[in-house]
């Protein structure tokens, strides 16, 4: 009876501490979690360089393309982006939280090669010699916008020459092979600036200016894989899965309490700690929470309970053999340890393979599942055990243990 009071005290302190911990950590952890594209809205594009005759795609070309694309993405003003080469001739672009992901793809995939042609379609100046490009509203046509460009020194010289030679004749302004407009030259332009008009909307002019400023891609890129998710769907998926997760969790908590009674309560308390650990680890590791990732988390809760189930079934058995509660708890944990380890390692193996080979959402699923498996073993073999021993001090009534 001497032990009784302190044990109750310790259990109460643990429960209160855990309650406070979850209350204060819940929001910061959630805010710190990186949401995947499928939950925040955004896009993932895989671009592949198209080889042309006499133009080999080298790692250098791809590196250059990555730099230019990064420039463009930065100019879009989005917050979270990842840009990296993949294999020999590919670039992956991931943008989270983009309101209009389709428009972003439009901008990314353009080569943006600006050329000025004379009447015989000879190239006179190219976008290579640009210093700056800015969008502004047109003075002439109402409600349209235009792009003002400044050439560098070499460009100014070439453009002056071109305009001098073509007075009274049209000069075609060509972007990626499409003639945008063909204004007639009134007089030689020697100050190194030019206007591109073409009845643009303000947005179109803005995008074009971004493209021209970041420069032309060294190769033309083709979209070979694209997944873009609007913000509406992302938010909807997030709401629904959080709701589903909570419902699933409550069902598990009730089941454990009803079936295993006092140890079930221990399992439920352990699950709270487990959830905090997994979400905390994910936010610290900077892991990305995707839609399948939430499924992985919900699933890992179901599996975290498994360690408890294995232990408690053992515990019941040992109690039925007539062991005292403490001896039964001890034996239960000892025997359950290898079972838990062996069974979890095999699941971990498949999760790790997925993590290594999977991409995007599948990877997110594997990461959460792996973190979950490790955390569930840790919690079950330390925290749950300690709590169960404390409970054993409080009540030795075997009925409370389901026997």
């Amino acid at each position, binding site marked *: 009876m001497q032990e009784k009071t302190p044990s109750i005290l310790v259990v109460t302190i643990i429960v209160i501490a855990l309650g406070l911990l979850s209350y204060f950590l819940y929001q910061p952890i959630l805010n710190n979690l990186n949401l995947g594209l*499928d939950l925040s809205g955004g896009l993932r594009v*895989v671009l592949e360089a198209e080889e042309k005759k006499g133009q080999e795609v080298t790692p250098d070309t791809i590196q250059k393309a990555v730099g230019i694309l990064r420039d463009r993405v930065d100019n879009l003003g989005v917050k979270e982006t990842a840009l990296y080469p993949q294999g020999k001739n590919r670039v992956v672009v991931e943008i989270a939280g983009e309101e209009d*992901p*389709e428009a972003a*793809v439009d901008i990314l*995939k353009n080569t943006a090669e600006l050329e000025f042609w004379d009447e015989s379609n000879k190239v006179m100046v190219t976008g290579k010699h640009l210093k700056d490009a800015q969008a502004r509203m047109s003075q002439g046509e109402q409600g349209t916008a235009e792009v003002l460009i400044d050439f560098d020194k070499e460009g100014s010289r070439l453009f002056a020459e071109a305009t001098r030679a073509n007075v009274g004749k049209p000069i075609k302004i060509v972007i990626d092979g499409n003639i945008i407009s063909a204004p007639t030259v009134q007089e030689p332009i020697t100050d190194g600036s030019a206007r591109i008009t073409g009845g643009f909307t303000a947005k179109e002019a803005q995008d074009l200016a971004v493209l021209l400023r970041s420069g032309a891609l060294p190769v033309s890129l083709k*979209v*070979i*894989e*694209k997944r*873009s*998710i*609007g913000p*509406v*769907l992302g938010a909807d*998926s997030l709401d*629904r*899965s959080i*709701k*589903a*997760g909570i*419902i*699933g*969790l409550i*069902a*598990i908590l009730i*089941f*454990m309490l009803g079936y295993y009674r006092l140890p079930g309560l221990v399992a439920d308390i352990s699950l709270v700690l487990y959830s905090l650990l997994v979400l905390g680890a994910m936010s610290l590791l900077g892991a990305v929470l995707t*839609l*399948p990732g*939430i*499924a992985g988390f*919900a*699933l890992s*809760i*179901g*599996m975290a*309970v*498994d360690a408890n*189930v294995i232990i408690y*079934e053992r515990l019941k*058995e040992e109690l039925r053999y007539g062991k005292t509660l403490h001896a039964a708890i001890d034996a239960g944990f000892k*025997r359950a340890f290898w*079972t838990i380890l*062996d*069974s979890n*390692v*095999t*699941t*971990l*193996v*498949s*999760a790790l393979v*997925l993590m290594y*080979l*999977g*991409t995007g*959402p*599948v990877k997110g699923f*594997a990461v959460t599942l792996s973190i979950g498996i490790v955390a569930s073993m840790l919690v079950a073999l330390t925290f749950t055990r300690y709590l169960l021993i404390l409970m054993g001090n409080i009540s030795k009534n075997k009925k409370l243990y389901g026997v």
Partner: protein
Amino acid sequence: MDIFIKRRKVFYIISLLIIIPGLVSLVMNGLNLGIDFTGGSIIQVQMDSSVQSAQVRSALKEIGMERADVSKSGNQFLIRTTELDQEQTRQLLDALESKFKNVEFLSAESVGAAIGKELTNKAILAVIIAAFAMLIYITIRFEWTFGVAAIVSEIHDVLFVLGLFSLFQWEINTSFIAAILTVVGYSINDTIVIFDRIRENLRMKRKEDYANLVNRSITQSLNRSINTVLTSLFALVALLVFGGGNIRYFILAMVIGFVVGCYSSIFVASPVWYDIKNRA
């Protein structure tokens, strides 16, 4: 409860009764491969629920996409087509926005056919590597007879799920591979808990034949086997019912796989181990 070994042939037959039609369907109809594998585009938009699929179809016909497949659920529309490039996607969205009111863009996916092939190869590789890794682990921790029995029950589970997906022509994507691998991992986990019990009972060296011993081990683990699959199913079914539509088949594959995995670890894995052990 001494049915597990005595009646094992009955359970083998039950398994075969479901697996064989599934296999036939796999050979005849194959699987309903999504764009991840075949290449193509899927565009998802939200519009007024008064809009009919047929109206969307005719709107798409006007821009030369008469072969697009349109399906509607509530106020969400799913448009499947051959692979669209960026201009075509834009054209399609513009066409919808000009024809209908309150069009909300939900998602657009495009996958090139070449990528699809790569993903398929990667997926198959993943399953093989995972299976081998688990086989090695089990052989180290137990003995080869357990490893073989576990693999037999794994193949059972995978064929079962694949067969059902083929019979019902549910669509599969890369996430399906993740589901299959999870099912494999989970089912092995389930199987190992029982094998662990067999191993433990073997060590006690009681005078008991294998049939009895296996039967006893299964019975001792039965509560755990059922309770664990139940708690996992609580989470999965909640996701299936309340979760978003985009991962429905991913979850469905796991729900089926978990139930089958639990079944196979009780009625397939241990009886098969018994058969191997008796012959070895």
